């Protein structure tokens, strides 16, 4: 999985959680909270959808790693790769 694919995974989840948000111009380097109306319930859902759909675990201490699309990609891509290597 590339970092771009990883960003797509996160955006797909956000699109399902928050269909009322316009995701066509999300800036990868800007905090998601600063450009979308996402609250702590929504972030919890991103974490849980990652687990449900992809088997990726994000411990609570690491939630801040999901702040922007770029930081999501940096944090999650190695987890996806590790999972693929195991599989």
């Amino acid at each position, binding site marked *: 999985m590339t970092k771009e694919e990883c960003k797509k995974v996160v955006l797909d989840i956000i699109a*399902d959680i928050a*269909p009322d948000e316009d995701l066509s111009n999300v800036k990868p380097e800007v905090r998601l909270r600063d450009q979308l109306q996402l609250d702590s*319930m*929504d972030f919890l*859902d991103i974490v*849980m959808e990652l687990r*449900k759909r992809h088997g990726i675990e994000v411990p609570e201490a690491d939630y801040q790693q999901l702040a922007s699309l770029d930081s999501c990609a940096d944090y999650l891509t190695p987890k996806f790769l590790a999972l693929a290597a195991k599989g």
Partner: protein
Amino acid sequence: MNASNHYDVAIIGAGMSGLAAGIRLAHFGKKVCIFERHNAVGGLNSFYSMGGRKFDVGLHALTNFVRPGVKGTPLTKLLRQLRIDRAEFALCEQKQSRVAFGPEGETSLRFTNDFSVFESEIAAQFPEQIDGFRRLVTKVRAFDDVSLDAAPISARAVVREHITDPLLEDMLFCPVMYYGSAQEHDMEFGQFVIMFKALFLEGFARPLDGVRVILRVLLDKYRQAGGERRMKCGVAKIIAHAGRASALILDSDEEITATHVISSIGAPETERLMSSATGKPPLTPGRLSFVETITILNRQPADLGWGGDTIVFFNDSPRFDYECPEEPVDARSGVICIPNNFDYGTDLKLSEGIFRVTCLARYDRWATLPEDAYQAAKRAWFATVQRSARRFVPTVADDALVEATLATDMFTPRTITKFTGHIGGAIYGAPVKHRQGRTELENVYLCGTDQGFLGIIGAMLSGISMANYHILQKS
């Protein structure tokens, strides 16, 4: 342990809160079953059929309505958390509602889903109070009403810091109390804030076919997520061992086990299912119950001159007494709902007219009546309630109303207890709420009325919050 009768989560009660909790848990892969004693879902917000008609109970209007694009409010959170597209609820907005006080409704404040209407009505009729009212609204907007551990403060005390005219104070409390307060006379300020936002800052809407549209959406989501449901099968007993629920005994005498139990049936009602003697005094059930009269008309209410108002909150007395009455019913105040008066668009309308009136009532005056006396009391109070309410809507001659009436029905506190199991017909539950949903048993949590988020949207958010807080965030 037999895997087939063990669940990750057992939910007691298939009302709005239990269904919402179930959707969240099933969506995230939990093995969930909802146990419901009645043969219909919905609990306090349900419907029944009689004489070929469907009657809604509970829902007058869905509160907390905001238009598409408004974010961060309870309705938006709910739709996101349950993955519901707002088009599925097909919500239609109210036309106009009023708070009408005085023996003939002399003081009347209109409000719509546009808050500026209410504000300008108060500015026009209470010019000396408007600055205080605006300060109160600022405070309400800034208040964190979903905090799970806020200290309780008196809403009457906070409102009086800003509003000095007792008439306006009562006119603000009347709708807010009638649509959700389990406490007599006063409310906890956090509860006041929830309801004030839900009614005035947000607003009223309704699907054309009423509460069953919302219930159908919830049931579909729950089923699609893989949730199980057992109808006509309540939980008779919670067996406790070492501070935890170790098993549930069903009405059918079957025994099941669950890692977690979420109970939506009320705090005192849940306590009564627990077998453990804690030595503590039992929880106090609520005292506030209601009657509702329903009149079915052979024409649109507008044809009788009742086309203007969606909801009217009324009171005829010098002060508004929100308390359990001495008499079977207190018809001095109440709520009129005319479901035809939502804006369903030009092509759609309800086929018959509906005129509903809700008043405060006393459970024990209804509970013990023999059947024929009960029926006679229903007839007598129906007439009293309807006569009282008609003072607050445009005059219709008695014979014209009789001629237009196709059918009538009425529910009483006794009906509520019979179909929902709520002790004392207490629609809004016990006066003391349990924000964190904890009970005497470590793995049994409350959701719904007695957790303390109010209204229909509040009920669903309560189920969501408790499922998140106690189960999903911890696994």
